[in-house]
């Protein structure tokens, strides 16, 4: 190991860490990244990307099953789960290689192993218990991410009870499935297995699925999933797992009543736990809040020279938030003056069928904050492109501050909305008002026209509805 001293060492090469490393290197900082498992982190290897590959298979399958709707015929449509998973792994593998290439191109040293802080400005790296070396850096960025949160009695067993990793590399196809938790991860797996023909039940402790989304969108999502045959139980607690050889019986308690549900497999998707253990944080001034590292807007911890980004820090726990923080922290270290991240500008996406995407405040949150709001709605049914695509179900909802015309939030459900949300995110980031959005020309025929119409509707001016 030639080099033992760096300007910057990044611990963790996920979407936060590798982006921070590349940006730091671009700014002329001598940079290394320590990764214990996979370049690209969970996101690329076991999260965002491989699940999108799986969901694409499910989408194609769905279309083939509905081929007749388009005047096509596709008989005997079936799937080979092993091949579907293989494709997903290949996609992840390809991108993993891409990250390695990008790091190399930017002259970022990749140190293979587990890092632990070893005194001020020192990082000790071990691999399988053996010391790799101790490296020095003026700036150390913790980007170790998070793992699936477990609940007592619902621990993953690798066979009957799964978390995300097993759920995306199943040995066999579960004919029935219980998903505990209806955030983006739970809903995406539910949607995937449901599309392939599993009998899927979703259990959510809150009173609605996708609880961070706008209530109206949550409601529409629930209806759409139920129409596809999914069973959804909200305000419910899952517990008391009784396992047999190849099935699990789960006691689901709703409103004082308990129902036993027997399924082949259970997926637990109840949130994340930050990876803060074994990092040597206990010998620093770093503060934790419910396990997550507390940072300021420039991603600095309370320990000088130590920074943290991504899932290991405060919410939202999203890959694009981590990447953005990676850029901020690198620029801050390089003495630039980056703009702090405004969490209200971070979009969120769920890639189920139908898709859900949003940015900013929900209608309820906006009202709670005391805004007088103007709300616009436009249904997919009123959009030519949506009809032509055979996707007439969905809604684009916009929320404006009645006083200033500020776009407070946008919430969508339906085909391709995860690709559309960025239009509103740009609008919000540039602080447009309803007037600018009304003046923007949207191409015809596109789904994006609904974004225009929704804004017009908020001011009583929608043309096509």
């Amino acid at each position, binding site marked *: 190991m030639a080099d033992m001293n760096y300007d910057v060492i990044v611990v963790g090469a996920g979407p936060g860490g590798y982006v921070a490393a590349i940006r730091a290197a671009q700014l002329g900082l001598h940079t290394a990244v320590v990764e214990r498992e996979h370049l690209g982190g969970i996101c690329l290897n076991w999260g965002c990307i491989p699940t999108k590959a799986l969901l694409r298979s499910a989408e194609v399958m769905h279309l083939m099953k509905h081929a007749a709707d388009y005047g096509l015929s596709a008989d005997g449509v079936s799937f080979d789960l092993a091949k579907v998973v293989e494709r997903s792994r290949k996609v992840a593998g390809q991108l993993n290689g891409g990250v390695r290439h990008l790091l190399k191109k930017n002259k970022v040293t990749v140190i293979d192993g587990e890092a632990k802080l070893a005194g001020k400005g020192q990082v000790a790296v071990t691999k399988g218990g053996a010391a790799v070396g101790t490296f020095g850096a003026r700036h150390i960025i913790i980007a170790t991410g998070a793992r699936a949160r477990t609940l007592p009695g619902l621990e993953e067993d690798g066979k009957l009870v799964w978390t995300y990793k097993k759920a995306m590399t199943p040995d066999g196809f579960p004919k029935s499935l219980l998903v505990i938790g209806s955030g983006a991860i739970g809903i995406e797996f539910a949607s995937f297995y449901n599309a392939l023909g599993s009998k899927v039940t979703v259990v959510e402790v809150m009173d609605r699925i996708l609880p961070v989304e706008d209530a109206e969108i949550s409601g529409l999502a629930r209806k759409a999933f139920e129409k596809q045959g999914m069973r959804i139980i909200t305000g419910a607690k899952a517990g008391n797992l009784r396992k047999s050889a190849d099935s699990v019986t789960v006691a689901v308690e709703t409103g004082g009543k308990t129902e036993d549900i027997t399924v082949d497999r259970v997926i637990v998707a109840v949130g994340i736990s930050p990876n803060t253990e074994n990092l040597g944080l206990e010998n620093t001034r770093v503060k934790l809040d419910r396990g997550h590292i507390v940072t300021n807007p420039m991603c600095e911890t309370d320990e000088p020279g130590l920074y943290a980004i991504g899932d290991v820090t405060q919410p939202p726990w999203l890959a694009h938030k981590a990447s953005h923080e990676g850029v901020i922290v690198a620029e801050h270290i390089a003495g630039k003056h980056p703009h702090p991240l405004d969490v209200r500008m971070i979009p969120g996406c769920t890639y189920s069928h139908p898709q859900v995407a949003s940015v900013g405040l929900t209608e309820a949150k906006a009202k709670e904050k005391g805004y007088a709001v103007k709300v616009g709605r436009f249904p997919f049914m009123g959009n030519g492109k949506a009809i032509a695509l055979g996707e007439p179900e969905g809604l684009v909802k916009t929320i404006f501050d009645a006083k200033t015309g500020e776009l407070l939030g946008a919430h969508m459900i339906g085909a391709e909305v995860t690709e559309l949300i960025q239009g509103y995110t740009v609008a919000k980031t540039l602080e447009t008002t309803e007037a600018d959005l009304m*003046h923007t020309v949207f191409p015809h025929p596109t789904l994006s026209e609904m974004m225009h119409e929704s804004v017009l509707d908020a001011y009583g001016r929608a043309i096509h509805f």
Partner: protein
Amino acid sequence: MTIPILMPALSPTMTEGNLAKWLKKEGDEVKAGDVLAEIETDKATMEVEAVDEGRLGKILVEGGSQGVAVNTPIAILLEEGEDESALSAAASGGAASAAPAAPAPQAAPAPAPAEAPKAAAAPAAASASAPGGRVFASPLARRLAGQAGLDLAAIKGTGPNGRIVKADVEAAKAAPRPAAAAAPAAASAAAAQAAPATAAAPAAKLSAGIDAKSYSDKLGMRYKAVPNSSMRKTIARRLTEGQQTIPQYHLTVDCQIDALLKVRAELNGRSDSYKLSVNDFIIRASALALKKMPALNAAWTDDAMLQYESVDVSVAAATPTGLITPIIKNADRKGLAEISNEMKDLAKRAREGTLKPEEFQGGTFSISNLGMFGIKQFEALINPPQGAILAVGVSEQRPVVKDGALAIATVMTCTISIDHRVADGAVGAQFLSVFKSLIEDPLSMLL
């Protein structure tokens, strides 16, 4: 093609004006050069002349309208052969092309749709009128500034490339305005502080702390609300800005002017083509002193002191509508008679409101004289970006000690207010001493 007639910017600082009255009616034939309307600007009443020929098709902004943003279409001119049917198309098109920086057609106050926030006109105007080019601000920041009555040009942007964003406007809204008195007696305190002519009146928008209107309404005090003219608003804005941003100090000196009065009487006896006033001597003495002390003929910027190459003396003049400061340009190179005649002409036209912008904008030093009201001594507020202003009191006989004995002399007390960033106390004192020796030995002014 119809031709939109836009609210003109008659001075570089003008962002809005009042459309005083129309001199042409709808349907009137118009030739280039015809006076169409009168506009009351920051400083004076100006005439709007027609540039093109045609027929006045439609008046969009009625006479008597206040606060019309620069570049707002105020009327539509029909070209030869066009009739009224061309108007409807023009109304919307004209508005859009008139305010390219405006986020919405609502920016034009004239045909305002019901929903359009009234304030939308202001931010559009602010950017449109900025002489240096666009003011970069997010649409939301523009609207918020408009709603809060804030001038975008005065707000520092912290967004990408200095763009003004929502947070900047909110910070500006929340920022304390240090100069305003916090005590409930704000109004009387401000009035007690002698300022040139009318400058003491607090501007509602600029006065922080107690809002006179809600205060008075709450206590059931009765009043007549006299709407502020553009000029009144400009006086309030400029002087508030000066008071808040300029660290100023004051130096006072007594000048004995018996010799000066004698010279004046003698000169005035020689010819009828001029009638010199004491003030004309003060202008000349100030100009000569400034020439000798260029450090005070200057303005402060963060990077450099701008020492002006010519000595242009602004002389505060009270007019029925408020304070205005016509300028004697190159006053150091003008004789007393020339200064005197020029001043009389400027003062007359100031009262009539017919000064051209260049005649009251761009002075390098100011003089404010309240001697005619019997004021003995006062401190004037600096007129930014100038570096100093001289406040002149009454000339009166006072007991003085001469050669160890009590005597009577005609004394005039002068107080200079100086921007400390521009010149330190010793420099200011030196200037006053040069000025005093010129005034007390008027023949030296001939040198």
